C-alpha cells in the first residue's frame, strides 16, 4: 500500500523535469534523426504539405557543401593543436603550483581568472590586442602585441585584419583558446596532485631519483586519470569551438575579405539552420556527434591501456 503511494509520489516529483526533457531533449533527438534522413527537409515546406524522400541526400549535401571541408579542417586543426598545448602547460603550472608554498593561493586565483570570463567579451579584448588601426591607408596604432614584437626587434605582423593569412589568424585563435582552456585543466590537475600520496615522493627521494624521473615515473602515472579526463573534455570542447572565433572575428567568422575562412563545425550547423536548411543542419549535427563519440571512445580505449588507476 505504502509502496504504491510512493510510486505515485515519485513520478509527481519527477513530472516537471520529465515534461521539459520530453519536449526539449527527447523529441529533439527523434526529430533531428528524422530531419537528417528526410532529403532536403525544410520545416516551412513540411507545414505547407510537402513530403520528403528518405535517404542519405542530406549527408551528401553536407559533404559537398562549399566550405564544409574548411569548417571540418579548422575544427580538427584547432582541437589537435590546442588540446596537447594546453594540457602540457596546465600540467607544468599545476606541478609548479604544487611545489611552492608562499603565494600559492594568489597564483591559483590568478590562473583561474580566465574561467570566470565571458568568451565573447575577452575574445574582443584579444581582437583589440592584435588589431592594427588604419584610417584609409594611413596606419595609426599597430596594436599592443605588434608593439611588443617591435620592442624586441621583430616586425609587425598582420594578425587578423583585412588581407591577413589564415595561418596568422590561426595563431591568434590558438593563443586565445589555450589561454581560455588553461584554468579548468589546472584546477583538475592540481586537485589530482594534492591527492597523490606523499609517500611515493619520499620513497623516490630516498632512492635518489631525479626530479625529471620523479615527474615522469610518479607524477604523470598517478595523475593519468585526471590527464585523461582533461584530454577527453578538451577534445569534446574543441570540436564544439565556436564562440572564441565569434569573439575575435565576429559573426563573419573570418577577417575582412575572408568571411567564413575560420568557420567551424558548430558554425556550419548554425549557418544552415539560419538558411532554413534544417535537414542539412541536422545531418551536420549528427556528423559532429559521431565524430565526438568516436574520439571519446578512442580516448577511453587509449586511456584504459595507459591510465594507471
Amino acid at each position, binding site marked *: 500500500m505504502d*509502496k504504491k503511494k*510512493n*510510486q505515485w*509520489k*515519485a513520478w509527481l*516529483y519527477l513530472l*516537471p*523535469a520529465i515534461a*521539459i*526533457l520530453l519536449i*526539449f*531533449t527527447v*523529441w529533439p533527438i527523434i*526529430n*533531428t534523426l528524422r*530531419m537528417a534522413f528526410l532529403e532536403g527537409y525544410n*520545416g516551412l515546406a513540411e507545414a505547407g504539405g510537402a513530403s520528403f524522400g528518405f535517404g542519405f541526400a542530406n549527408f551528401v549535401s553536407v559533404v559537398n557543401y562549399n566550405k564544409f571541408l574548411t569548417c571540418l579542417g579548422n575544427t580538427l586543426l584547432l582541437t589537435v593543436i590546442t588540446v596537447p598545448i594546453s594540457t602540457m602547460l596546465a600540467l607544468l603550472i599545476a606541478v*609548479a603550483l604544487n*611545489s*611552492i608554498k*608562499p*603565494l600559492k593561493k594568489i*597564483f591559483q586565483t*590568478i*590562473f*583561474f581568472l580566465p574561467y*570566470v*570570463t*565571458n*568568451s565573447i*567579451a575577452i575574445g*574582443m*579584448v*584579444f581582437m*583589440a*590586442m592584435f*588589431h592594427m*588601426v588604419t*584610417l584609409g591607408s594611413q596606419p*595609426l596604432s599597430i596594436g*599592443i602585441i605588434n608593439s611588443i614584437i617591435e620592442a624586441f626587434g621583430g616586425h609587425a605582423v598582420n594578425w587578423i585584419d583585412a588581407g591577413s593569412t589564415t595561418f596568422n589568424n590561426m595563431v591568434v585563435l590558438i593563443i586565445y583558446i589555450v589561454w581560455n582552456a588553461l584554468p579548468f585543466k589546472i584546477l*583538475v590537475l592540481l*586537485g589530482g596532485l594534492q591527492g597523490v600520496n606523499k609517500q611515493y615522493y619520499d620513497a623516490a627521494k630516498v632512492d635518489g631519483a631525479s626530479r625529471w624521473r620523479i615527474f615522469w615515473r610518479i607524477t604523470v602515472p598517478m595523475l593519468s586519470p585526471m590527464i585523461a*579526463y582533461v584530454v577527453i573534455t578538451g577534445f569534446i*570542447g574543441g570540436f*564544439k569551438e*565556436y564562440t572564441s572565433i*565569434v*569573439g575575435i572575428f565576429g*559573426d563573419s567568422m573570418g577577417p575582412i575579405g575572408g568571411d567564413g575562412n575560420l568557420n567551424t563545425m558548430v558554425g556550419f*550547423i*548554425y549557418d544552415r*539552420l539560419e538558411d532554413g536548411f*534544417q535537414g542539412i543542419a*541536422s545531418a551536420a*549535427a549528427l556528423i559532429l*556527434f559521431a565524430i*565526438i*563519440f568516436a574520439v*571519446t571512445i578512442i580516448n577511453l580505449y587509449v586511456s584504459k591501456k595507459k591510465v594507471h588507476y
Partner: protein
Amino acid sequence: MAEEINVIQNDKPPKQKNNSASVTSTTKKQKVRKVFINIGLYTFLTLMAVTVLFPFYFMLISSVKTMNEYNQMIPTLWPKQFEWSNYAMAFTGDLHLGQLFLNTVIVGVVSTILSLVVTVLSAYAFARLDFKGKNVLFAALLATMMIPGELFTITNYITVVNWFDWRNTFAALIVPFLVSVFYIYLLRQNFMQIPNELYLAAKVDGTSDLKYLWKVMIPLSAPTLISITILKMMGAWNSYIWPKLVANDLAHRLVTVGLRGAAFTTASGLVNIPAQMAAVVLVTIPLLLVFLFFRKYIMRGVSRSGIKG
C-alpha cells in the same frame, strides 16, 4: 621574490643543522639546488601569471584612454588622461547596456529559481524514493549528457519559434534549459550521502516528505545548491548562440549578444575601441566579483562538470 625564497629556506626542518660535517656539505649542495629550483619555479609561474593577466590589464587601461591616445603609434602603458565618458557611452550608445543588464538578470534569476525547484524535486525522487524503473530512467538521463547541445538546438529552435511562438520572449530563453541532467546528478549524489536514519527518524516524528526535504536535505546540501546557482547565473551571463537565434530584440537581448553586436563605429569610420573595452569591462567585472566572493563554490562545481557556464 627573494623574500619568498628565504621563507622557503627557513621552512626547512631544523634537524639538518645538527648533522655531521659530510652530511652538511651535501645538504648545503641540496640547499643551493633548492634555491635554484625555487627561482625557476617562481620565474615560470610569474611569467605565466603575467600572460594570463595581460589581457585584463590591457582591457582596463584601454577602457579609460581617449581615442587619440589609443591610436598612437607608440602605445602608453598607463593612460595619460582618463576618459571616463567611455563608460557612460556603454549606457547611452546603441548598446543600451542598462537594458541588457536588466534582461540578463531577469533571465538569470528566474531560470535559476525554477531550475533549482525542478532539480531538487528530481534529485529527491532519485535519491530517496523507490519506484519502478528508477535506475533505467536515471541511466537514460545520464546518457543524454553525451549528446552535443547543437543536436538539440535545431529542433528546439523549430519548437520554440514555430510551435510555441516564443520568438522574442523570456520564455524562449528560460524554459528549454530548466532541466540540467548534470545538476540532478550532482544533487542526487549529495542527497544520497545524508544518512537514511535521519529520514526514518523524521518519519517517526510524523514529518512530511516535503517538510523533511525543506528542513533537512536542502540545508545539508547548501554548498551544492550554491554551486548550481552560481553556474546557472554565469550561464545566463555568458550564453550567446541560443539567445541570438531566438530573442534578439532590445527588450529581451542578453549582454553577450548585445556586446558582440554593437558597432562602436565613430563618424570618422574608426572603431572606438576604448569605448568597446569599457563595455567589455562592465560585462566582465560582475563575473570576477562573483568569483572572488564565491571562489570555493565555483571551483567545486567546475572541477566536476567540465563545462563552462
